[in-house]
């Protein structure tokens, strides 16, 4: 029963909620989160110390990341503050190639001596590992960018907002849910700021200031008579934005089919919490789904997770090559399928692209963690598999001349490796609204927001739940359903995609804590789509009795 590197919080959802905290993070006070980090000129001076030390130790390439990682988590339930966690983690990670092999070392001793020592240690590790290395590292070229910087285009730095305001907002949302009949409500605000400085022997000195925000909750309603309880999570999205995401601008509200209120670029947590309580009451008395084949109409707040699991992960080149075989697994999307240039990943409606630049997305940066300028590229074009996600030491395998720019490390103390870019389904080219889409469905289920999820280690077979399920009968919403999950096979599923709504319906959602690697690392990634229709998908009923 090991729960390493997690802070346990009882009460979030039915089980326990675990907050991921870096083992090197220190708790600090909220004010400290606003203290300026190290001056950029000093970072450059120290970076050069590392690069020189690495080179004089025999490294043919070296990079250094000087990282300051700040987190604030505000945790409440009903009318109580349970926890306020402020953490700071500061240190450097140095990666080198020596004798054709990678070596990595990190230290929290951010001094000339500490950094030089770590650089030498990285070179020594590389040389030691070179003895068993069978595939010398090959890097595609990267431009030398000189001194450059980037900041997430935030309007309000979340750390400048007093903690009291955040607590008050969460407690107001909790009260709104309780007023509407919730039995319990847990809410939490995750705020993250990565201040990272990158330099490499390629001649780039990159200073980036990245912000992410995620307000979320879980509302429980218990039906005393039947003893049944149901829950619903928040309809917020984790975003690459500042505190302006909580501005609740009326123009960002969307009324979706089934009179469901959804949100685009800003979020009304109080309104959503109240609606959640109302909807959970409806779920309790909803009809249990009849298992069978249905046409699924999947809302962007739901479809993002299916994209993440069935498209994002299998198209990571390191998985395809076997580097993740012992943990996350490999991939069905093998190189021969890509080389054939005619592998039908999906129907001709399906265009999937990777992107590290989308404004407001969790993955947006100007340069990745190995100093490559970020971009957008196609993965599946008109249904055909055309590319993967690859970094500098993999791109040559695809015959490409430059990296895709999707290298990431979750801390200065972690070694950077290939991580998922934002992977999204392109909107349909024809004008089509979700209402029009539903009007063409005879027997279907409309699913809002992600729920339970599971997929095999090569990303063939998956099962997804959701938060809200509506029965579609003869082109109309015919009431709420419960106990719904769908099972399919990735290729079969994407080939059953017959329609995608147009760009007016396109929205991002995403994962704030996506795990990969050994030792495990977390990353944040967004996925966009418009509502899409998938025909004849197998729906199961998940109701059971345990006495």
């Amino acid at each position, binding site marked *: *029963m090991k729960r390493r590197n997690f802070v346990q919080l*009882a009460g979030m959802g039915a089980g326990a909620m675990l907050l991921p905290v870096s083992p090197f993070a220190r708790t600090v006070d909220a004010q400290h989160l606003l203290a300026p980090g190290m001056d950029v000129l000093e970072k450059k001076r120290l970076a050069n110390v590392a690069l020189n030390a690495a080179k004089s130790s025999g490294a043919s390439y070296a990079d250094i990341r000087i990282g300051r990682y700040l987190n604030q988590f505000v945790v409440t339930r009903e009318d109580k503050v349970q926890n306020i966690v402020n953490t700071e983690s500061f240190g450097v990670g140095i990666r080198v190639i020596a004798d054709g092999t990678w070596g990595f070392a990190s230290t929290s001793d951010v001094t000339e001596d500490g950094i030089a020592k770590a650089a030498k240690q990285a070179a020594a590790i590389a040389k030691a590992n070179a003895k068993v290395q069978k595939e010398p590292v090959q890097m595609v070229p990267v431009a030398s960018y000189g001194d450059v910087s980037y900041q997430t285009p935030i309007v309000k730095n979340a750390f400048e907002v007093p903690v009291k305001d955040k607590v008050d907002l969460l407690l107001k949302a909790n009260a709104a849910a309780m007023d509407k009949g919730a039995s319990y409500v847990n809410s939490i605000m995750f705020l993250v700021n990565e201040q990272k400085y990158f330099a490499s022997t390629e001649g780039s000195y990159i200073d980036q200031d990245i912000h992410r925000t995620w307000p979320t909750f879980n509302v429980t309603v218990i039906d005393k008579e039947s003893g049944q309880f149901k829950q619903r999570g928040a309809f917020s999205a984790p975003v690459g934005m500042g505190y302006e995401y909580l501005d609740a601008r009326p123009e960002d509200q969307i009324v979706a089919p089934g009179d469901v209120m959804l949100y685009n670029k800003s979020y009304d947590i109080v309104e959503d919490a109240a609606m959640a309580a109302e909807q959970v009451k409806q779920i309790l008395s909803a009809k249990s789904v009849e298992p069978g084949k249905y046409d699924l109409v999947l809302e962007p707040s739901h479809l993002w997770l299916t994209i993440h699991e069935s498209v994002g992960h299998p198209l990571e080149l390191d998985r395809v090559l076997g580097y993740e075989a012992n943990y996350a697994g490999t991939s069905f999307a093998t190189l021969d399928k890509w080389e054939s240039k005619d592998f039908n990943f999906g129907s001709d409606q399906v265009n999937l692209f990777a992107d590290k630049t989308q404004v407001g997305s969790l993955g947006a940066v100007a340069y990745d963690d190995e100093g490559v300028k970020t971009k957008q590229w196609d993965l599946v074009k008109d249904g055909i598999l055309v590319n993967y996600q690859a970094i500098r030491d993999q791109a040559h395998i695809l015959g490409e001349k430059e990296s895709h720019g999707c290298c990431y490390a979750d801390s200065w103390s972690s070694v950077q490796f290939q991580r998922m870019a934002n992977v999204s389904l392109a909107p349909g080219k024809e004008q089509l609204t979700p209402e029009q889409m539903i009007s063409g469905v005879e027997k279907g289920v409309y699913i809002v927001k992600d729920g339970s999820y599971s997929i095999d280690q090569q990303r063939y077979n998956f099962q997804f739940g959701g938060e809200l399920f509506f029965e579609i009968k003869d082109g109309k919403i015919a009431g709420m359903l419960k106990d719904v999950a769908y099972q399919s096979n990735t290729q079969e599923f994407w080939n059953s995609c017959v329609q995608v709504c147009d760009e007016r319906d396109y929205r991002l959602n995403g994962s704030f804590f996506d795990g990969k690697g050994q030792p495990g690392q977390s990353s944040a990634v967004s996925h966009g789509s418009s509502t899409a229709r998938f025909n004849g998908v197998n729906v199961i009923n998940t109701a059971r009795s345990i006495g």
Partner: protein
Amino acid sequence: MAIFSKDEAKTILQKVISLSKADACEANLNGSNGGNIRYARNTVSTAGENSDVTLVVQSSFGKKSGTATVNEFDDASLEKAVRRSEELAQLAPENPEFMEPLGPQEYGESKTYSEATANIDPEYRAQTAANSIKPAAEKDVTAAGFLEDSHNFAAMHNSKGLFAYNQSTNVDFTVTMRTNDGTGSGWVTRDFNDVSKLDTAEASKIAIDKALMSRNAKAIEPGKYTVILEPAASIGLLQNMFFNMGARQADEGRSFLSKKGGGTKLGEQIVDERVNIYTDPFHPDVPASPWTQGGQARKKMDILKNGVVSNMFYDRYWASQKDVDPVPFPGNGIMEGGDASLEDLIKDTRRGILVTRFWYIRTVDPQTLLYTGLTRDGTFYIENGRIAYPIKNFRFNESPIIMLNNLETLGQQVRVNGNLIPYMKIRDFTFTSLSDAV
């Protein structure tokens, strides 16, 4: 050096407490030395070492608390941390669930430290990789594995006079072996406090054998099957059950242990009467820390006895609300087994499925503890008392409660992920679809 002796830790912590001006003060000092090696494609991919030591000081005035962290231990740094935590406590909102620090406790003698594990060096890790890669390459198999070792200490002291100290070591090893034609995959997991019990060559051979045996699997129809679950398979479902045995959740009506109309299933039989699960931090095969993070003593204690819920877990606040003794979350889970070896269980099975492990287990319904996930890395059809052929992987939708009600036979225990779990034969295990994954 990140490992402080008991005396060194005590000296630092006593200084911290003596500096305190708060109503209550509690200090935790933790340190670790760790290392790892990762390999894939029959070559080493990453290797590293890390060490860290941290002091956390929590000061409280009434129900208001503040925390400060420091990693330097001279007098001035300690004083700064104490004063900072006091300032923050004065500014903090009241926590209605605040509990005063515990007074002195009595702890049993820890068995969690092994010198052999503390002495693991880069050569040992490199040899582990070689123990997998060399035999794999000889059989046209590709190895991907991970070994992680750690030596930790934890010490705490508070203004009520409680002092606790523990040293522990741990080593975790997993390896996946895949045949180079892509049709077979095997896996093995091992974990110990004492690395002298770990034989990575023997473990690697099991994974290679499974990979070779699982080539060219046949598809059989999903449905309800008798299964023999290796402990590495059942542990995922059992751990999820343990994590959901909190008393507060049950009392609040949002747990599988909540009862219709209120109340809980404490004292009620919920699974087969042959199911006995307990925790014992002093068990020689799966030792755990004698005390929890908050300083509560861990003891041997029943969780499920003859299929009856004997204990739910109460944190100190909830125990005070319910006027019961706190029951800390256990450091390990031990499920009693039987004498049957895996071979005996197979021999005794006319038709069934042998499952090596489950993968990607996620909650479907918290009320019934329904989980979904898939078999992986070695799934075999058993016919007339022997393994007949490998089969394609299945997705399951099953609850550990239903699983433990459908118990047929208990086999021998194996350590997995810090717990002792027996091989189990279960009837009517629900597989809902086929997977093409190898």
